[in-house]
């Protein structure tokens, strides 16, 4: 027994890469997840405000809102651009012209709320701020008046005024399970060739090593597309989650989303020296990209430094594409940038993974 123990210990320690990955990767993932779970305890919502009133009442409200939100005074066009076109803010408040006069005369005043319901959580927080502002408004007005502000909500980005929790969880968790299946499947499949002893034959195959690997990747790509489509269609029929106005746009987006996932699988295979190393590496990628991309929770609940990192990871773009399609009722034309960026990630991951894998195994 002692001899077997020593032999297996030596074998385990011989794979220094596996030892390194087993220690460093968890530390990295724990740091990312820990940072995200710290949450933004008092996240300030970005809040564009249009002050068409330019009077004392709007001025007072804006001063109050500044304590609880990142208020940016902009014009109406800029506010709509930030909410509807760039999705940089969940909602914008418009204090209309004549608000102060109406208010001081004791008349109920209209306040306009321009919203992007795809960011339902943030819109809810802005509404809470407005409710509190309404209390303040009542105190500033005649003592018996209860209703001093009338809120008119205008949805700028589609028909879904109040999306439910499934609108976040279905696309988020569907993509996470595709990440799990495709990354592990792809990375393991590449290393299986080595385990089966068929890798040397692939390296000298007439069709070329890269083309052989691309052939293998194509299978994983197809599996990933089918898996994601099935999960989304299930969400549609089981939970009423919208699939957007264009089936063609949905299929194109799903294809674009799965491409970088397969590339990440290839990159995992290229980085891992052995099949055993693919497990912690793949898991690290799945957890990190799920966490940063907003697959588990909306990015705005995480600390600001994490939101900055999130804005460049491909899963964030994938989720934004899904929200554009499902919640903002956008079609093919609105997906052009998202699809291009996802495709670029796919090309980069795949090329890097192929180069690493080829270099690592050609040398042996």
């Amino acid at each position, binding site marked *: 027994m002692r001899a077997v123990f020593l032999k297996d210990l030596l074998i385990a320690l011989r794979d220094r890469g596996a030892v390194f990955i087993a220690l460093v990767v968890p530390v990295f993932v724990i740091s990312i997840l820990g940072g995200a779970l710290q949450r933004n305890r008092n996240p300030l919502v970005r809040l564009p405000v249009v002050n068409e009133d330019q*009077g004392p009442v709007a001025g007072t409200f804006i001063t109050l809102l500044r304590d609880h939100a990142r208020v940016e005074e902009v014009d109406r066009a800029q506010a709509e651009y930030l909410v509807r076109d760039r999705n940089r803010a969940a909602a914008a408040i418009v204090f209309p012209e004549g608000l102060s006069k109406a208010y001081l005369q004791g008349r109920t005043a209209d306040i306009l709320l321009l919203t992007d319901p795809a960011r339902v959580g943030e819109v809810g927080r802005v509404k809470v*701020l407005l409710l*509190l502002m309404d209390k303040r408004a009542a105190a500033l007005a005649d003592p018996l008046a209860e209703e001093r502000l009338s809120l008119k909500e205008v949805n700028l980005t589609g028909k879904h005024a109040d999306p439910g929790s499934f609108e976040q969880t279905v696309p988020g968790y569907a993509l996470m399970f595709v990440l799990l299946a495709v990354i592990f499947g792809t990375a393991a499949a590449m290393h299986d060739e080595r385990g089966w002893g068929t890798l040397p034959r692939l390296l000298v195959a007439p069709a070329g090593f890269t083309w052989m690997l691309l052939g293998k990747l194509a299978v994983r790509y197809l599996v990933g597309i089918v898996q994601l489509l099935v999960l989304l269609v299930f969400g549609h029929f089981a939970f009423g989650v919208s699939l957007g106005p264009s089936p063609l746009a949905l299929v194109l987006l799903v294809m674009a989303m799965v491409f970088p996932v397969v590339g990440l699988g290839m990159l995992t295979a290229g980085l891992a020296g052995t099949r055993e190393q693919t497990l912690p590496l793949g898991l690290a990628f799945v957890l990190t990209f799920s966490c940063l991309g907003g697959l588990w929770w909306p990015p705005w609940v995480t600390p600001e430094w994490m939101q900055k990192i999130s804005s460049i990871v491909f899963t964030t773009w994938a989720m934004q594409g899904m929200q554009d399609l499902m919640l903002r009722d956008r079609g093919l034309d609105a997906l052009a940038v998202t699809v291009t960026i996802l495709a670029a990630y796919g090309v980069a991951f795949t090329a890097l993974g192929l180069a690493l894998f080829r270099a690592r195994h050609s040398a042996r």
Partner: protein
Amino acid sequence: MTANGRVALLVVALVAAPAAAEAPGPMAVTREVLTRSNAIVTGSGEHRQKVEALNTLLRPFLDTEAMGRRAMGKHLDGRSPAQVRAFLDVFRELFMRTYIQRLLLFEVPDFGYKGEHVDGDAATVETEIITPKDRFGVDYTMRRSTGAWRATDIRVEGASLGDNFRSQFDAALAKEPFDSLMERLRKKVAGPAEPDL
């Protein structure tokens, strides 16, 4: 004596002085009060201190008793003297709070004086609050009693604060008894003037 105390005494002296040839007219009284208000609003000091200073300044200027009787109108008929007194006391606090809070909305109020119309013991003083972007008309309905001019109503942008209160009292008393309304008013007065966000 504090500066606010001196200001209050000055206003009391202005409004309580016996009618004489040199007695200040409604415009002069209003101008004096608003000038002092401006100094308080734009001066240093915390919000609460400003509210207290304005309260002291405006109390002799605003005839809240006349305003309260007008606002409650026929609903005071048949009430006991104690009930009437209790209402007028609560109304004074409410009106002062309402007016002061509106005044404090303007961070740097600049008052303009358009003119006065005197008709015996009644007068109207037309003023405006000038902001960088707009002007807000504020007219004071004044009445001279025991030689002093005091405001019995304030119209902001043409809307009378007294009428506003009256319509609210009418609406409230159509749905609830007098005592219930009094209880609500007392709670309002006892509660915070400005809830924090």
